[in-house]
């Protein structure tokens, strides 16, 4: 009941007229930006981060919570209407959702997504309220060796799960880790990878990297693919569910939530797996199996709820251990750091009032999104009728603004162009960028904990496996690495299938080329 009192205090702080206005502004801008095609929650949050720099921490976090949930919601709208998921976790809801939209049932798909997000977000936020303080209490006992193991497990799962292969995921992760090394080493005071350039001594700002990798590369991708003139038709009808659709949706929302929150809150989590699991579950349990693949409403309701519940779950390791397990969570961690807060077990003790105000505003943001989105869904869909050239030209301007306000110097824009070009290469090479963001943010923390552990043990690496918990975690890491696809759920099967195609194709190319030469 202690939590309830604290939560009530959080509500008191969040329910002032001024803070309500910030929350409303947050969900509105978050949705408006998140709705833009190809812009997922991570980029939405990064692009809008500069807005929060000048506010006091409470107002900033409230605005931020709104942007986070708004960006999530806006992203799912786009994936349903356009089939352009902005991040891997909304791929599944795009499968059935886009089919429904093409069959003229876009309004129902959007409604079940909005209501599912609301249900999952609310249940997830309630779960955070009760689970987070408990995990924080537990996390106080964690020492540097446990942190090292937890971070490595996050690295390995993020590289293995996001993207087509472990190798490409690892490449992306290492790029992030390398960028994270740039700057003055806090412990020894020596500059690393700065090449004597003063602009690099403070390191490369996370916002700059995220905006470069996601936004600039997206714009460049459109230039390269010549898709700058594409537009979409607006949605017709109102976002309402019929009685039958509601009856089919609500069990799926609850099941999706039940899958999403626990998996999302694991330190290895991420939101992708629960959405796949939810889709598979709904398909198995549905009385309308024949509709799957042609626009089954359960196939939107379940995964969308799972996605949002996982997004709430991801906040648990983030707030209590300081461990981001998705690109979005990594950007949120940066936001906390920019207000001088370090998420982790001490956060609840030291800045409890802020954390509870944040959790309270998650509830408020959720209600606002529902109120805002059901009637306004047509307005958001109108945003999609803006031609791509206008959207991406504006995104480039915003990206430059974000990079400049994060770093404050001309060097930052040079870096932005360079990182944008790198992002384009990664995009063409089908290498995921999310692990790079996680590596960039967790890398310095990992190094810090590793060095702390070594100081504790006076240089004996044995400390890394000194407790039962660390041994268990390292075994889990070995399992993920050694047993291929232990966690990738069917992706392995797809890959084997693709490999077969490939080996067959390699043989035929040689045949045909010999034929050519003759």
């Amino acid at each position, binding site marked *: 009941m202690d939590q309830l009192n604290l939560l009530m205090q959080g509500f008191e702080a969040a329910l002032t007229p001024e803070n309500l206005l910030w929350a409303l502004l947050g969900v509105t801008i978050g949705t408006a930006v998140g709705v833009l095609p190809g812009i997922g929650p991570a980029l939405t949050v990064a692009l809008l981060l500069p807005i929060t720099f000048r506010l006091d921490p409470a107002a900033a976090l409230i605005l931020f919570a709104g942007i986070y949930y708004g960006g999530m919601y806006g992203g799912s709208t786009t994936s349903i209407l356009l089939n352009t998921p902005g991040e891997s976790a909304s791929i599944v809801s795009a499968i059935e959702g886009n089919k429904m939209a093409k069959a003229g049932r876009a309004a129902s798909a959007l409604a079940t997504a909005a209501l599912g997000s609301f249900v999952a977000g609310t249940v997830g936020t309630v779960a955070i309220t009760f689970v987070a303080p408990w995990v924080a209490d537990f996390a106080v006992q964690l020492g540097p060796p446990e942190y090292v193991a937890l971070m490595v497990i996050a690295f390995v799962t993020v590289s293995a799960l996001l993207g087509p292969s472990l190798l490409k995921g690892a490449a992306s992760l290492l790029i992030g880790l390398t960028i994270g090394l740039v700057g003055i080493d806090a412990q020894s005071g020596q500059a690393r990878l700065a090449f004597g350039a003063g602009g690099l001594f403070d390191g490369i700002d996370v916002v700059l990297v995220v905006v470069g990798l996601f936004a600039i590369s997206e714009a460049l991708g459109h230039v390269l693919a010549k898709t700058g003139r594409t537009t979409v038709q607006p949605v017709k009808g109102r976002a309402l569910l019929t009685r039958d659709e509601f009856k089919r949706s609500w069990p799926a929302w609850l099941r999706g939530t039940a899958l999403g929150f626990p998996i999302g809150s694991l330190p290895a989590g991420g939101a992708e797996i629960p959405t796949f699991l939810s889709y598979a579950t709904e398909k198995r349990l549905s009385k309308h199996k024949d509709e799957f693949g042609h626009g089954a409403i359960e196939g939107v309701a379940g995964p969308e709820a799972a996605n949002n519940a996982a997004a709430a779950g991801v906040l648990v390791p983030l707030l209590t251990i300081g461990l981001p397990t998705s690109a979005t969570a990594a950007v949120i961690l940066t936001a906390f750091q920019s207000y001088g807060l370090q998420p982790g077990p001490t956060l609840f003790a030291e800045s409890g009032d802020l954390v509870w105000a944040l959790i309270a505003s998650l509830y408020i943001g959720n209600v606002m999104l529902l109120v805002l989105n059901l009637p306004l869904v047509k307005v958001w869909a109108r945003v999609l009728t803006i031609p791509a050239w206008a959207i991406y030209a504006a995104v480039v301007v915003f990206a430059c603004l974000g990079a400049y306000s994060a770093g404050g110097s001309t060097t930052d824009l040079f870096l932005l162009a360079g990182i944008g070009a790198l992002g384009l290469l990664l995009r063409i090479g089908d290498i995921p960028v999310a692990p790079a963001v996680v590596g960039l943010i967790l890398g310095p923390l990992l190094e810090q904990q590793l060095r702390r552990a070594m*100081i504790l043990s006076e240089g004996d690496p044995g400390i890394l496996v000194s407790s039962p918990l660390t041994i268990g975690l390292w075994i889990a890491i070995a399992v993920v690495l050694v047993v291929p696809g232990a966690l990738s759920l069917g992706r392995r099967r797809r890959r084997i299938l693709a490999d077969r195609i490939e080996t067959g194709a390699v043989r035929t190319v040689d045949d045909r080329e010999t034929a050519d030469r003759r």
Partner: protein
Amino acid sequence: MSARRREKQALPGLDTTEVRTVRDRRAAPPSSVASRAVDHPAVVSGAVTAVVGLLLVVAAIVLLTDAASLRPTSEPLGPAAFPTIIGVLLAVVGVALVAVNLRFVLVVLRRGVGPVSPRLWRVLGLLAGIVVYGVLLPFVGFTVVSVALFVAGALVLGSPRPWWRLALYGLVLAGVIVLLFDRVIGLALPAGPWGF
């Protein structure tokens, strides 16, 4: 569909392990075997992945050299230890990426790249635009450079509108940003000699 049938349909030597690229490519099969390598998305993707692998190897060399130049400290794990671990991993993953995707590079080299596509020049143009933006920003002020970047970006992206209409849109965008960020939120945007 059985794997065997897929094998027959699969196109020569142009596959990656990604189901998506395999599917995309099948949706628009190249007209003839003699077509340029750059017309096959899967080949381009594989070759670019190899280039990324090469970049990782270069980064590994830079990182290891840099780490070697750091002065050791009294700590058991000095400032060079972590960069060295990452450098070694970069080299391993980089070499692996190059090795796995080498055949795509060979295909590109054998078939030739052909003339540089104008789209590539547009990409470089947009990147140059961002650099110029950075150079001019402190002198000309946020509003003017932002309008210019918006117009340049829109034209590069293939906007059918004339430049003066684009400048008008850009002005509205920059105006909204200045109002919201500079005046309401208090983020000091660089102003030009004319105060905006």
